[in-house]
């Protein structure tokens, strides 16, 4: 387990070699990026199979409240593996099927990977902020690396919203440090309990607001459509397949461990029940996301808004906070990551073949290229949560958990179901158009062998998880018990054991 630190440090080291290699041997730098991501995927998968119990990894030799430590548990290892896999896929797509990019592009992808892994693994609030900023900066630059002005505009909008969010986060850090006297998540978690309720609620809202900016939750997601539309397709796939995974993980850990006070009543400070706010934000995000996606004429914006809606469902599930809901969240995040990667990769092909991202002009593209059309359909079915596809287990468990939960959670179920119908309508509308008889013969899509292999792998994973979830199920089943704060082996006790007191 102590090698987990290299999940963050190795991509950083690889990224540091690129300024020199990029100047003298540009081809080698691309190879290094791809090999590094492959090695990272292998390392994270190995750590996942070797995983036994929660561990705290000390950095710099200082025990947890004094130094920065990493906290490795099953959920974080699964998320890290998902991030590495998604980045590897997106990078291979960019290398073999995208436009020619400078070595710096691949360096920023490596930095983004390192930062996302850092966000997932770190056990320190300020360290989390640093990694969020690295992830932010590399995403702005990656988004803006598209050709047109749209990418630059999208990046600027993202940057402005995210900078406001980081100011909010820093203000919260100032309050936390001056009251709880520590920045270590476990110590803060035990210190937050005897905080003035108003201040506690304020801190929680400030921090969650900045996490929600990356997670694309409703009032903070105004940047999403233009950023996804302007970015190169591989970067859109990364934003949707990797960044949201890390953001959802951070939101989950913040609300359950750092600010949570036991399952079922997760965040409550005196009269302020923050859980209700999470619930309504989730529901509103689902409604607005799906409605906006339905009205969208641009395919990439449509997929972006569908991501927003999926994140809304996950936030809704976080607010339920039962074992079944956590189980559902893990499945939903994995399914969303896989399906969106596939959808953006195929969409990127459609965009480059037809020269436009307005889907109304894609009539007959799927008929001409049955492989791409079929892959698009599989991705759409994976998102929708149709039985036999990956998304099914996530949505099924979340809905089941919502019905069992007390309070008004059942309202959310009907909203999610209605939203899924809307989602189905716009996905099938597009899929139908793809297979329609066109007036003029559409262009056929040229794709590299890597595109075929990686999309086939993704499609196989979507169907495989949908039909036979047992291998993943075995791991995921352990997560709720690990996260539960009732369990003495929980996060806080692990950290305190590492502190040796």
């Amino acid at each position, binding site marked *: 387990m102590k090698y987990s630190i290299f999940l963050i440090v190795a991509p950083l080291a690889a990224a540091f070699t690129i300024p020199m290699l990029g100047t003298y041997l540009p081809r080698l730098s691309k190879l290094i990026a791809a090999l590094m991501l492959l090695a990272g995927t292998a390392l994270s998968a190995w750590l996942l199979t070797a995983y036994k119990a929660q561990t705290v990894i000390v950095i710099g030799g200082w025990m947890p409240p004094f130094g920065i430590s990493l906290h490795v548990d099953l959920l974080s290892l699964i998320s890290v593996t998902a991030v590495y896999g998604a980045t590897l896929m997106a990078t291979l797509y960019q290398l073999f099927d995208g436009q020619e990019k400078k070595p710096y592009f691949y360096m920023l992808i490596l930095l983004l990977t390192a930062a996302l892994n850092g966000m997932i693994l770190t056990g320190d609030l300020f360290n989390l902020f640093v990694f969020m900023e690295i992830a932010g900066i590399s995403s702005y630059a990656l988004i803006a690396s598209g050709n047109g002005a749209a990418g630059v505009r999208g990046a600027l909008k993202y940057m402005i919203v995210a900078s406001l969010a980081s*100011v909010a986060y820093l203000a919260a850090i100032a309050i936390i440090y001056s009251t709880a006297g520590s920045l270590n998540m476990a110590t803060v978690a035990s210190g937050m309990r005897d905080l003035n309720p108003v201040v506690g609620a304020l801190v929680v809202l400030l921090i969650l607001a900045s996490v929600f900016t990356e997670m694309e939750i409703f009032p903070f997601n105004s940047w999403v459509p233009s950023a996804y539309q302007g970015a190169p397709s591989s970067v859109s796939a990364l934003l949707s397949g990797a960044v949201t995974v890390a953001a959802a993980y951070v939101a989950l850990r913040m609300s359950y461990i750092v600010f949570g006070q036991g399952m079922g009543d997760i965040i409550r400070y005196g009269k302020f029940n923050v859980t209700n706010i999470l619930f309504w934000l989730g529901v509103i995000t689902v409604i607005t996301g799906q409605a906006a996606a339905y009205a969208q004429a641009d395919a990439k914006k449509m997929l972006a808004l569908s991501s927003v809606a999926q994140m809304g469902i996950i936030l809704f599930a976080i607010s339920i906070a039962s074992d079944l809901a956590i189980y559902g969240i893990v499945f939903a995040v994995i399914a969303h990551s896989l399906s969106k990667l596939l959808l953006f990769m195929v969409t990127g092909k459609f965009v480059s073949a037809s020269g436009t991202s307005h889907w109304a002009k894609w009539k007959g593209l799927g008929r001409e290229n049955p492989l791409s059309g079929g892959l698009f359909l599989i991705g759409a079915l994976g998102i929708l949560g149709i039985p036999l596809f990956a998304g099914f287990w996530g949505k099924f468990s979340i809905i089941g958990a919502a019905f069992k939960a007390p309070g008004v959670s059942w309202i959310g179920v009907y909203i999610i179901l209605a939203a899924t119908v809307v989602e189905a309508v716009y996905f099938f509308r597009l899929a139908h158009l793809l297979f329609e008889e066109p007036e003029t013969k559409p262009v056929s899509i040229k794709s590299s062998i890597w595109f075929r292999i990686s999309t086939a792998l993704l499609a196989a994973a979507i169907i495989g998880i949908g039909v036979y979830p047992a291998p993943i199920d075995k791991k995921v089943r352990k997560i709720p018990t690990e996260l539960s704060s009732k369990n003495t082996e929980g996060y806080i006790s692990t950290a305190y054991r590492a502190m040796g007191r």
Partner: protein
Amino acid sequence: MNNTIFILGVGAFFLMMIGLYGVLTNRNVFRLILGLGLMETGVNLFIVGASYWKGGKPPILGTVFETKAVDSYADPVPQALVLTSIVIGLGVTALALALMVRLKETTKSIDIIETKEEEVNE
């Protein structure tokens, strides 16, 4: 209540709010970046100010130093955090300015809101 801390806190808060006003009322990218810079400076002051107490001296060990004298030094942790935060702010500002230059090169204007729908050429 300590006057110094009150002045610092209110000053930092107003600085943040002035910056926020700048961010909310402008469409000009350059002015947005300036507003964000003001907010960052404000929040940095807030971090150090929130853990400051009267008479805090620079936390640098002198020639004679008793363990008891620790109390006369200001808290070093927020200072370390702010050092990091200032450098991060510089990185964000520099990248934002690069984005602004790109925007000016591609659209001949630095208005953040698009005038008409722009096509993506991938």
